[in-house]
């Protein structure tokens, strides 16, 4: 048999590259660092930032009101004692998951295509966790006592109640936030050094210089860097699974029909990654258009992410099916009523909208390559999925609570202005942080792209 050589290799289906050919180390560095250092603040950036900042002010207003008046400003009541706050918390935490998955899990899997989306996906994680973290705080009756959930050495010898999943949540989310920030920052150090070296303004040189922590690019530095990022990736990867599993425990540990279910952990993790990838798409598509980054974030990336959407979306769909099936298979009156009430009760329109957004639309469309490679369609689908995933959490939180065991205690939840202020306010927080990020930090990892240049040129 003839030895296989590049010349006579069978024709492999052309895979779009993860980096448009023709780039050199210098062109990559120039292109990405110029966004921060050379191009300056653009009009479009200002427009987006001002809108986001205005929303952030709305959030501040809502927080001030809730702190001074009380959580009565939300639409919650007895029996629906959790409402938008918990819905938003789970939603934001879920969104963060894709970033960690891309930066850590795919790193360990040696998926090179992750390189160009990794940086901003991880920034997205941190900002989403920041938004998420606000909600459990704000929904507390007495938020100023939040530290009672921490196991600190109290003079009275009082400890948190470790059987409560809310305590597990505190650990899960704070660990997640810490590891994500560390991972993100460590990954930024070589690029911060690049910016330091290229900056012309004194102030930029100082700030980037301080942040670069004395990075000189020596072999020793690189060796340590590689070790640290591998270790952090190793730490972060299980978090992708564990954080949302613990979040799902908030529900499964309770006895409320519609919450008390063993399927929640995998289905929550899949849902988290589902919504997270949708968010990455939502961010990546305008970014690459706006900053002309099509060379770095190629159709290959979008296609891959769409496939991730499809895969996780199918898991989520399976979760819904099983939930419904088990309600009937178990023969449990309460579970059966809960499902029927979800489908045909007062919140039925929202349930069916959720099914449409999460299953009907993406699961039919994403099978087609033409859709997966249609940037506009993907953008719309990513928004639809995010709405769907928000609705999913809303349906889980509210419809399970509003009609539980004793029919006499049934009630309804109607969101208030404050509920929406805080939801859209955190969207403002997220985008404010994100706009600052794209303005002042390299949104694509420069040195990893250089590695990619090296690899693709071989």
């Amino acid at each position, binding site marked *: 048999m003839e030895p296989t050589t590049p010349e006579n290799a069978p024709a492999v289906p052309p895979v779009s590259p993860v980096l448009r050919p023709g780039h050199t180390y210098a062109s990559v560095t120039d292109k990405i660092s110029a966004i921060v250092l050379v191009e300056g603040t653009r009009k479009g950036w200002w427009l987006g930032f001002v809108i986001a900042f205005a929303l952030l002010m709305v959030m501040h207003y809502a927080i001030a009101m809730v702190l001074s*008046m009380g959580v009565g400003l939300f639409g919650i009541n007895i029996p629906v*004692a959790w409402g938008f706050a918990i819905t938003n918390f789970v939603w934001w935490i879920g969104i963060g998951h894709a970033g960690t998955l891309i930066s850590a899990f795919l790193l360990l899997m040696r998926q090179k295509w992750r390189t160009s989306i990794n940086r901003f996906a991880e920034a997205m994680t941190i900002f989403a966790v920041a938004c998420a973290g606000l909600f459990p705080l704000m929904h507390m*009756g*007495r938020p100023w006592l939040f530290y009672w*959930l921490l196991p600190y050495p109290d003079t009275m010898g*009082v400890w948190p109640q470790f059987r409560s999943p809310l305590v597990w949540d505190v650990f899960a989310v704070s660990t997640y936030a810490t590891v994500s920030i560390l991972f993100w920052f460590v990954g930024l150090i070589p690029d911060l050094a690049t910016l330091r070296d290229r900056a012309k303004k004194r102030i930029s040189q100082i700030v980037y210089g301080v942040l670069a922590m004395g990075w000189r690019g020596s072999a020793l530095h690189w060796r340590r860097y590689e070790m640290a990022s591998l270790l952090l990736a190793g730490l972060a990867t299980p978090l992708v699974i564990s954080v949302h599993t613990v979040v799902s425990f908030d529900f499964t540990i309770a006895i409320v029909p519609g919450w008390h279910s063993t399927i929640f952990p995998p289905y929550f993790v899949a849902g988290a990654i589902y919504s997270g990838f949708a968010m990455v798409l939502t961010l990546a598509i305008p970014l690459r258009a706006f900053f002309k980054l099509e060379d770095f974030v190629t159709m290959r990336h979008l296609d891959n992410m769409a496939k991730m959407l499809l895969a996780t979306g199918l898991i989520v769909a399976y979760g819904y099916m099983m939930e419904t099936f088990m309600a009937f298979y178990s023969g449990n009156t309460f579970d059966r009523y809960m499902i029927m009430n979800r489908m045909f009760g007062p919140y039925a329109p929202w349930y069916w909208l959720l099914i449409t957004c999460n299953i009907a639309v993406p699961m039919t469309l994403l099978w087609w390559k033409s859709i997966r490679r249609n940037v506009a369609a993907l953008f719309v689908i990513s928004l639809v999925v995010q709405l769907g995933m928000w609705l999913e959490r809303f349906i889980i939180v509210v419809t399970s609570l509003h009609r539980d065991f004793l*029919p006499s205690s049934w009630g309804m939840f109607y969101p208030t202005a404050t509920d929406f202020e805080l939801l859209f306010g955190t969207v403002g927080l997220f985008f404010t942080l994100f706009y600052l990020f794209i303005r002042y930090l390299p949104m694509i990892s420069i040195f990893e792209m250089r590695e990619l240049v090296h690899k693709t040129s071989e």
Partner: protein
Amino acid sequence: MADQRDSKKRLDLVNIRTQLESSHGQRRWRSLEELAVTAEYRDYLHHEFPYHTEKGSSGISRRDVLKLMGASAALAGLTACTKLPTEKIVPYVQAPEEFIPGKPLFYATSMPFGGVAEGLLVESHLGRPTKAEGNPEHPGSLGAADIFGQASVLNLYDPDRSQVVVHNGRIGDWAGFLNAMEVLRQELAATQGAGLRILTETVTSPTFAARLAELLKQYPKAQWHQHDPAGRDNVRAGARLAFGEIVETLYRFDRAGVVLALDSDFLCAGPASVRYAHDFAQKRRVTSPASTMNRLYVVEPAPTNTGAQADHRLPLRAAEIEGFARSLAGMLGVKASSASGGTPPPEYGWIGALARDLQKHRGTSIVLAGDAQPPAVHALAHAMNAALGNVGNTVVYTNSIEANPTDQLQSLKALVADMRSGQVATLVILSSNPVYSAPADLEFQENLLKVNQRIHLGLYEDETAVLCHWHIPETHFLEAWGDARAYDGTVSTIQPLISPLYEGKSAHEVLAVLLGQPGRTGHEIVREYWKSQRSEKDFEAFWETTLHDGVMAGTAFPLKTVTLKMVPGSASPQAAPEGGLEVNFRPDPNIWDGRFANNGWLQECPRPLTKITWDNAVMVSPKTAQDFKVANEDVVELRYGGRKVRGPIWIMPGHADKSATVHLGYGRTRAGHVGSGAGFNAYALRTSDRPWFGSGIEIRKTGATYLLAHTQHHHLISQEGGEVEEESVAAEHRKVLRVARLEEFRKNPDFAKDPASQTTQAQSLYPAHDYSKGDQWGMSIDLNSCIGCNACVVACQAENNIAVVGKDQVSRGREMHWIRVDTYYEGDLDNPRMYNEVIPCMQCENAPCEVVCPVGATVHSPEGLNEMIYNRCVGTRYCSNNCPYKVRRFNFYLYSDWVTPSLYGLRNPNVTVRSRGVMEKCTYCIQRINAVKIKAEEANRSIKDGEILTACQQTCPTQAIVFGNINDPNSKVAKLKVQSRNYGLLTELNTRPRTTYLAKLRNPNPEIPEGEV
């Protein structure tokens, strides 16, 4: 000593010497140890002056400065914002006997309600009344109280109460009033009191009656009128019709096997309702399959709590009830009741079976008619009782307990006529609000303005007060001396628990001014009246005993033999059922005729069956709603006799068709901050010729809607009532409420047991707690006895400092009641069976709320209580989500009133006033448990069964709630829990509730097929 010395470390004398030498100047030292600064010396110093050693050399530490600053700021604040009482503060030189600060004292008194005394025992903490309980010595109470009695304490502290004398709209003073009255007296003396009119409520008080008589003797031309908007004119007229004189009818429900209530809510309304509920429940208590049970038939237009208890309930328009009574009387052989022949019309349903049932229970049955029914129905009821041989057995008669039994409406009409013609020169209105509550056609307001001098005494500066020249703030009954008769005539004393909070005067005192004795106090007046009446040698001892007991022994009226004079031959003009829609006027179940409109506890207490708070509504049957194409909360315009009001619709399953019911007492304009503006004024439609019901009302849709805040059916009931059904169907599936017919129970005593619900402790993931030792608290609630009267709800609110949240918050599902009465319907929408279920905390042994609390703010006590630690709660509300009974309540805002000074006195000092952001819940009144525990521990004994009464249990008129130690097999509660009817709610969840229920039994007439309820 020597040993001690040896044990010490040797002193390093050389070192000390060098130290002394090296130190500059004169140094004084006390001991060698001090110089050596040994560890021993430091220890000694630390033990002697534990706080000293830490201090720096500056002498005063930062901490101390802050402490002093804080303390002085606090002191400065104290002087700034507290108005110190002007009286001299002298500590007790000789402390009153039994007065121990921190321990409450109880005093017997009575609440006059519609003139009749409701016996109360009021708890007093350091001289301020905090909680009213029923007086066990009182025949009308037997230790229980109704919602009005329970809520009366709040009225005392109501910041909206009238506080000063008002003269011509300006602040006046009592001295000015006395001067004016002196002038008036001189005028009156000249004219023998011509033009002087006194308008009071119904009066049963012997003292007050005697004083009035004195006044009328002094001024022979003066006249006294009585006005009670929810009065009992029909009862009096019915007695006069039947017997030729006005007598009091007393029913002995504890002897009755069959009861027929004709539009009578005898369990929850009327002066004897607490006693009647107690007696009625006696005959409904079933302990074994061998027990018997009474049977209740109710015919009524609008569902009431009594109707909900009925074994057979027939919705009939109020006007048709006379026909029903006539028909029944004919069947029972009452002579001379015309129009009774022939077969009864089909809408009378089971009347034949009822007649046979009554015949079977001759001498042990009761037929009674409600206050709203015309005199003819009352007379027919008297005649039927006579025909059934009930008189003397279950129905007895006494003289009227009223001082002057009369037709009050006629008397009011006469007064208004005189006012109109200018014959009334001076009108003294005592504790009445006729401008608001008089029938609309009398135009009381216009005519009142024709009176030269108008004087008003009242708790509030109300609608009438603002139109009067003089308004005198009235003392609350907890501030005043007085007396009144109980339903059976027993004299009940009213003694103050606190001196008047404001410049209040009692009616006795105002009358004394008119009598020219302005200095006389209420105490003197009442005491001297009784001194003149009684022949006891030792009056002091007698008086002391009377005050202690709250009742004057042996003053119940003797039974009276009456003879039936005649039975109304022809139907009264009201009775002929006219065409068109009927309207019923009924006192509100909670705020009655409007007098409690400013009482937040009563406003927020969900109305029986409808669960509406803060409002009244136009109640119609589902069919009528369909006819008029109206849905819940649709605002309609009611037009009746040329008058109109607007109110929201409430579809009431079980209401009679072609009939609407409106509750009086709402639409107040000057009730106070709480009551003004709530609901609509049904008095505006009420006329003097048809005070209770009438035909020909028009309902017009306005297109507007009005939010009604209700606590149970928080979703709209659709026009067809589908939602009500859904809720009740779900309740049925979930076996929330277990009901059986008496025969079913006899066949299968274990019907309430649910085999699926038998769970064991072993099914828990967490280690089992040992509940086999010590006192283990539990509760049993007999659904068969519970009448849904809400007394427990208000009692709990009073005992546990539960906040009132207001209509807006209730409509958002944030009411705070720790105990609630759930209502479920069963069967046909037009005449469903109605069930009440009282839900306090279940105190689960495997409490789902406890495991999910992240800070351990809700924990289990070794005595099986699920305790709530307010201080620790951070307000995640997870516990409430995980509570399958939804008995936890959350302070979404700062609900407790921390600022109104007058409310400080109201609070139970043994219960924390909750702050914003914390969860709260029923504790089985842990403060009461602990109070008794301490007492028992002091005496080194165990707690006796029944020694601890929870607030809900204590006030329950039917004793449906029993609390106690379930580890003691002889306790009442343990005995109830082994009954076969015992079941727990949602026990399949393995919550192991400590509160359990005794299943409900119905006792329908086997002759009447099940479909026909």
